[in-house]
């Protein structure tokens, strides 16, 4: 159990909160290829789960849905009606494959953080948050240039119509910075930071509970241990909510960027 390794490694009498080292995972066993680590395994598992679920739901769709197809359709309609159609408009249906895959992939990766034994939300390793964000960014740039032309894109971005002239002096560089540099960065880091911080919180409270209840059980400290245990349960519930919300917001912003590239100033 990682907590015991952590806390025992310190070896002292003082409680040491877990730090960023809980995110370091080496190869699964000695001599394994260097890329076969726990996060990588979790991502592979997420891929299998997502593909398996959608295969079961959509491989032979019937006109009157039965069983898994119902659930799959609920997910599809949720993403279509809450994300694609409001953000992109009527032709959002064309982007549904991309948005649906992204949403469920990130959702399952996130939820791995609360499943026992696995307990690592994969996007807490920034690489797995960078990949979808980079794909969305490349897509956005490509679509913007294709639909608005290179000059047109910069003009629409930096000089939106209907503002007093002096405002453009401040607005243009801010908009340029925001769209070209900050957007992919915040897109990835939002997901990463939420998963990172959430996992750290759960680990912190869990190790508090473990230390004060099991490692160093004292009458005074046991209250703190119970508090830590209760808080870890609460934080787990909160983390489930945040994970789902972050997946939704990631997809929502991806749809918003794509919609902004397709119809500027809609």
């Amino acid at each position, binding site marked *: 159990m990682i907590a015991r390794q952590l806390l025992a490694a310190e070896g002292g009498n003082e409680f040491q909160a877990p730090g960023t080292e809980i995110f370091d995972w080496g190869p699964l066993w000695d001599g394994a290829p260097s890329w076969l680590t726990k996060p990588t395994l979790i991502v592979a598992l997420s891929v299998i789960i997502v593909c398996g679920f959608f295969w079961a739901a959509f491989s032979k769709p019937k006109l009157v849905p039965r069983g898994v197809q119902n659930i799959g359709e609920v997910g599809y309609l949720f993403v279509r009606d809450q994300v694609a159609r*409001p953000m992109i408009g009527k032709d959002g249906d064309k982007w549904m494959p991309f948005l649906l895959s992204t949403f469920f992939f990130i959702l399952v990766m996130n939820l791995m953080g609360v499943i026992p034994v696995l307990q690592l939300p994969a996007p807490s390793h920034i690489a797995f948050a960078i990949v979808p964000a980079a794909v969305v960014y490349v897509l956005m740039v490509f679509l913007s240039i294709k639909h608005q032309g290179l000059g047109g894109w910069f003009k629409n971005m930096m000089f939106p119509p209907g503002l007093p002239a002096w405002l453009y002096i401040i607005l243009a560089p801010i908009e340029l910075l*925001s769209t070209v540099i900050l957007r992919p960065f915040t897109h990835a880091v939002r997901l990463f930071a939420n998963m990172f911080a959430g996992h750290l919180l759960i680990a912190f409270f869990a190790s508090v509970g473990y230390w004060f209840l099991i490692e160093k059980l004292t009458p005074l400290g046991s209250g703190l241990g119970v508090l830590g245990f209760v808080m870890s349960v609460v934080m787990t519930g909160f983390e489930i909510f945040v994970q789902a919300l972050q997946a939704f917001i990631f997809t929502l912003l991806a749809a918003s960027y794509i919609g902004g590239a397709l119809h500027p100033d809609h």
Partner: protein
Amino acid sequence: MGVLAEVTGNVGSIAYGLAAIGPGIGVGIIFGQGVQAIARQPELYNTIRQNMLLGFALTEALALIGFVVPFVHS
């Protein structure tokens, strides 16, 4: 004159704590006003929602940069 007061430990955490004040207030204002606007004009829900999320993304960017800076300098 010696040192009057000293803060030891991870200054980065203090930095992020300070950096989170502004975006916290900002995000709260955005969504609070957004909810009020929806209550006043429910038929504009989609427009208000889009603008809310746009403002939220820009404001949260500052908080995220604040989160990241201590790691950059560690």
